[in-house]
């Protein structure tokens, strides 16, 4: 049964990691603006694909 002590220690540690992640998320401002990111996700990442095209065309040239 003593193994439960270790398991409890592990489970607490994992929980603490998540708490730390939550604190980091709040501190980095993720909870300040909860609306704009929902718009941002709609953008195609066109710029990177364009750059790829340019680089490939340069190679061809």
């Amino acid at each position, binding site marked *: *049964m003593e193994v*439960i*002590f270790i398991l*409890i220690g592990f*489970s*607490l540690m994992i*929980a603490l990691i*998540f*708490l730390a992640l*939550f*604190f980091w998320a*709040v*501190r980095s*401002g993720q*909870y*300040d*603006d909860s*609306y*704009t990111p929902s*718009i*941002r996700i*709609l*953008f*195609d990442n*066109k*710029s990177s694909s*364009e750059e790829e095209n340019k680089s490939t065309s340069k190679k061809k040239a």
Partner: protein
Amino acid sequence: MGTTVIMEKAITCYHCGEPCNEDAKRVGEKYFCCDGCQLVFEILQENNLDTYYCLESTPGISFKKKKNSNRFDYLDDSAVIERLVDFRNNGYIAVSFYIPNIHCTSCVWLLENLFKLDSGIINSSVNFLKRELSISLDEQKTTLRSVAELLTSIGYEPELKLEKLDKEKATSPDRRLWLKLGMAGFSFGNIMLFSVPEYLSGFTLSSQGSFHILFGLLNIALSLPVLFFSASDYLKSGWAAVRQGGINLDVPISIGILALFIQSVYEIFTGIGPGYLDSFTGLVFFLLIGRIIQKKTYERLSFDRDYKSYLPISVTTIREDGSERTVSVDKLEKGVRILIRNGELVPADAVMLSETGFVDYSFITGEADPVEMKQGDTVYAGGKLVGPTAELSVVKEVSNSYLTKLWNNAAFDDSSQHLKVSTLADRISPYFTLVVIGIAVVAALMWWPESVEMSLSVFTAVLIIACPCALALSTPFTLGSALNVFSKNGMFIKGTEAIEQLSGITSVVFDKTGTLTEPKRAEILLREGVLSDHELRLVKSACRQSVHPLSQKIADSLDNYGALPVETFEEVVNKGIKATVDGSQIRIGSASFVAESVAGESDVSTGKMANRSGASEVHIVINGEWKGWFKIAGSYRSGVKELLTGFKNRVETYLVSGDNASERSSLSPYFPRDALRFNQTPQQKLEFIKKLQDKGERVVMIGDGLNDAGALQQSDFGIALTDSTSSFTPACDAIMDGAALNRFDTFVDFSQKSMTTIKLSFGLSLMYNIVGLSFAVAGQLTPLLAAILMPLSSISIMIFTTGSTYLTAKRLGLISWK
């Protein structure tokens, strides 16, 4: 022929979606309504930014309605930059601009790709709700000024007001609340896990090794941050109230929190039982959820603006050598000559140097019609110039001007601010606390003869179970949902406390100009007479040349008609205009002025039409023939008359207007007798409200302009009416969309019903308390029972209040479910 007309009407600008008229520009397949739109399109296409048009159709901002764009010379001034930016170091600048034009996905996309237009911009990000753009830029490659000019050129002009210079760099206070909630939730969850074995095994766990000691210690360790961090606001506020000799809702909450914690620690250390730490952390967790809901604010609205957010940040000055330069407004000194263009605000009291000009004071004094100013007249700060560019000389600094003096009134002084409104829950708390402590003492005394230990534990059990968490939750959840319902209907209320104020009102005071009437849309009616399309074009062409505000209103109302060449044009001050357009002789103006040119007899020439109902009549004579007249009046908002009629029987209604009494007769049917007051100064408005309050009335003030600012502040519930929420509104308790005014009576109903919901939920929580107390007094309260009863009451209160608020809203027609 007919088909082409329909075709033309269907053409809209590819950039901004405005309908294009005959002078539309064409690029390939695409049409543009003006040069500005075309230019933006070309800039964006050159820089591979045409995704802008793919995300949303016609996302652009129309350049047609744009006034003279601000000039940004002052942004070269290092001192101004220092005060504007959030951060500046080694050529790196971080700055945020308020851009009211941000309105769609495309806007966000374009503004976040600004670096493609200016290589000096390192990063730009948009906060959509705040309409705010944060930019970081490299001063070696670009300047703040050129970024502002770039933004303006693509239609996203940053709005820079005087307040921006003094604004403190605010940090977000909401973050702490989230951290506290996260901490409480973390502890609550883990403590529950550690408590369950104890509940399930009854008291057999203590016989199985040292688990219960470990669990107990872990629980205490987990609950310490909850006590000192998450619950700190309640403890501090409760302690502050007790020290000042009062009791607010936080006092019984703090007593409950402390009783829970101390009793638990005592039980764990003495080994009597597992303690109530799961109930304790759960309680704090639920309370904080309530607080988050209550704190939910409208980020893009500001409820405490003063004149500083109305005045522009800069003004064009004329130096002695005649050159122009823009400077920031707070540097204006007496005697400086300033140049004000059409539509710009006069930032400080000044004397007119140009011959003549019109100043629109509607926002400052409530006067509906622009005032004509002659050379040497004093123009007060806040007036808006209508007509050609004028030169003025500053006579008072901004801080001493007429406009700013209003803010020296006591109503704006924070220290004399009427006592913070006490909420219903706060008013109940003293009785509640005394009753609970009374029950606890009596119960303890009754148990005393039996056993001292038992008597103490009954005492704390009563305090624990009576902790008014349901009481503390019902207000934020009810009013938080009510705020949501209100905002869906165009009324944005400052906070939940304000709704309580709204429910108890007994009289309503209205402003006229801009509140009952619509400011922009004057009602322009052609009375008595018929004009053909060609004649309307003649009138428009002539009126367009004139600087008189009435002429401009007429020209605006004839926007659909094309212009004709104007051959001669003469403006007779205070009378009207004479013009030759496309070969026709035209006179437009007052009855006596046009009568001179009329050949033969008509209503005008016989003087029948002269001076009947004031100045807002414009007569038209074309080629010596009287064609009719335009009536120009402020038009009432739709539904206002029904609202006023309904309100008259329900509460006291009053009208205080800064305008003259010309509309007394049209308004008096809708108000009780003696309720109309005209020609009121801002100070008189404020005193009128005060007088009503002295009579014991609870007053709602509905106004829109700076002249109402004092009255809005003084009233119990001040509503600022606006036609676009991004424009300036004076300090108030609520900002209401002009279109929502006609439903104001439903809003009052809803606020009253919401208060009923709160009272019902108080009854519900009282029932839980009675059940819990009967266990506590009997000495039967176990941690398991508390762990079930407390969350159960909290959650059922949340469901009851939220649900019944939305049901009420639906019944009143404020929301609908699809």
